[in-house]
């Protein structure tokens, strides 16, 4: 015990944990403010924020699921090769022979499904409680972008098992891009602007005129790098705005608690 006290007084310890756990208002605030991981968190949590019945905690659960997806996703990347030759085999390998492979893949899969659901419920709650109203209008728009990014992440991940279900689902999904106004070769004003099957927006998505190996690679890069990166940036703005717009929204009667 004495050794521990000695250690706590050392410069090494103090350089990492700058404040003691002495339970004072000031220390509580400093512990949050001085920590890079906690500084997004509000210094003081209003009592109504702990009322799960008002917020449902859906935003937080969505973020938790995003973290789960990031971690399990990185783990899956160790065994998965995004080429037409190997993708399906690697998925089978993960599911049958990799230790804890099925657990990781199923966690990724179920967390992905759950995240779409919780994002929707979060949006539903924000709508029902009127939390999109001023001063939170801007954060609602950021939230809409995050919803789209979540759906795109879900859609792009759907192709990666490279089985019949994946290929045809993405074939159907990307066929809608043909009808994009101006940018699709079957959409309004598309042909007039010179859109063909091999130069329109669907062609960029697929990397070809049909779902094939280039599509798998594009969706893989989008799923693992591009979309998460964009999502993280918007999430940072989203969380930051929650605090700047007056903290987590609560019942009208308790707002000034």
């Amino acid at each position, binding site marked *: 015990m004495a050794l521990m006290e000695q250690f706590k007084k050392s410069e090494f310890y103090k350089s990492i944990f700058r404040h003691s756990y002495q339970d004072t208002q000031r220390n509580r605030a400093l512990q949050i403010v001085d920590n890079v991981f906690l500084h997004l968190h509000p210094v003081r949590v209003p009592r109504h924020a702990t009322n799960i019945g008002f917020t449902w905690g859906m935003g937080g659960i969505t973020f938790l699921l995003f973290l789960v997806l990031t971690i399990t996703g990185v783990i899956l990347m160790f065994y998965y090769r995004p080429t037409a030759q190997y993708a399906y085999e690697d998925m089978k390998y993960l599911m049958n022979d990799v230790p804890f492979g099925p657990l990781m893949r199923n966690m990724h899969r179920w967390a992905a499904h759950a995240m779409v659901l919780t994002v929707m419920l979060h949006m539903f709650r924000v709508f029902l409680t009127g939390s999109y109203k001023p001063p939170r209008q801007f954060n609602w728009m950021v939230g809409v972008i995050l919803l789209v990014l979540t759906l795109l992440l879900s859609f792009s991940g759907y192709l990666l098992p490279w089985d019949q279900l994946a290929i045809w689902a993405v074939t*159907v999904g990307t066929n809608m891009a043909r009808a994009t106004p101006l940018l699709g070769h079957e959409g309004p004003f598309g042909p007039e602007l010179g859109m063909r099957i091999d130069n329109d927006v669907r062609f960029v998505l697929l990397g070809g005129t049909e779902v094939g*190996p280039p599509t798998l690679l594009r969706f893989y890069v989008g799923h693992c790098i591009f979309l998460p990166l964009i999502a993280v940036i918007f999430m940072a703005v989203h969380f930051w705005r929650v605090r700047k717009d007056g903290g987590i929204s609560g019942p009208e009667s308790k707002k000034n608690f």
Partner: protein
Amino acid sequence: MSDQTTENVQKDTSSSGGAGPKTTPVISQTPLPRKPKQDRPADQDPGIWRTNRRNVLAVTGWMGFLGFIIISTVGALRYMFPRVLFEPPTKFKAGFPQDFMIGEVSEKYKDEKRVWIVREKEGFYALISICTHLGCTPRWLPGDNKFKCPCHGSGFYRTGVNFEGPAPRPLERAFIGIADDGQLQIDRSVKFLYEKNEWGRIGSFLPYTG
């Protein structure tokens, strides 16, 4: 701003006078303090358009930066459009016409080329085996004499015209002709659409009675 303040001051003094004899309004306003330089609009200052060495260098630098960003963006966008596609060629030879029986719907090239070759009494036509609903591959059901899509149940007559399910338009026909060596020549990239009245055109139907 300053005009408004003056007006308010005058109004206040006159109303405080009330119903009493009219007095000259007291001008009690002190002149506003002169704003610091950074808050004042520059008078006759051309800003960045002042031609001196600093501005020329700054504008040149920013233009260079802007140009670099634009060119990089255009390059990155162009990068996403590949020049070479590793896809099966759209033009192919499909064997000799006498190898097909009258009334036959050949699925020989369906897997590889996604094309059915149909032989009627009067000749040939090639249907592209992509459902016009959402792009699945229908199946030819000889017993029912129709094409049926497994995804959402769209059905097409042997001519390719849709008659059931969600498909909004008939199947597309591909170009069909005779190659130099007498084989059937099919080009999937040339399409004939029924709804555009293109099924009568040359290439949409190959007359053959041999």
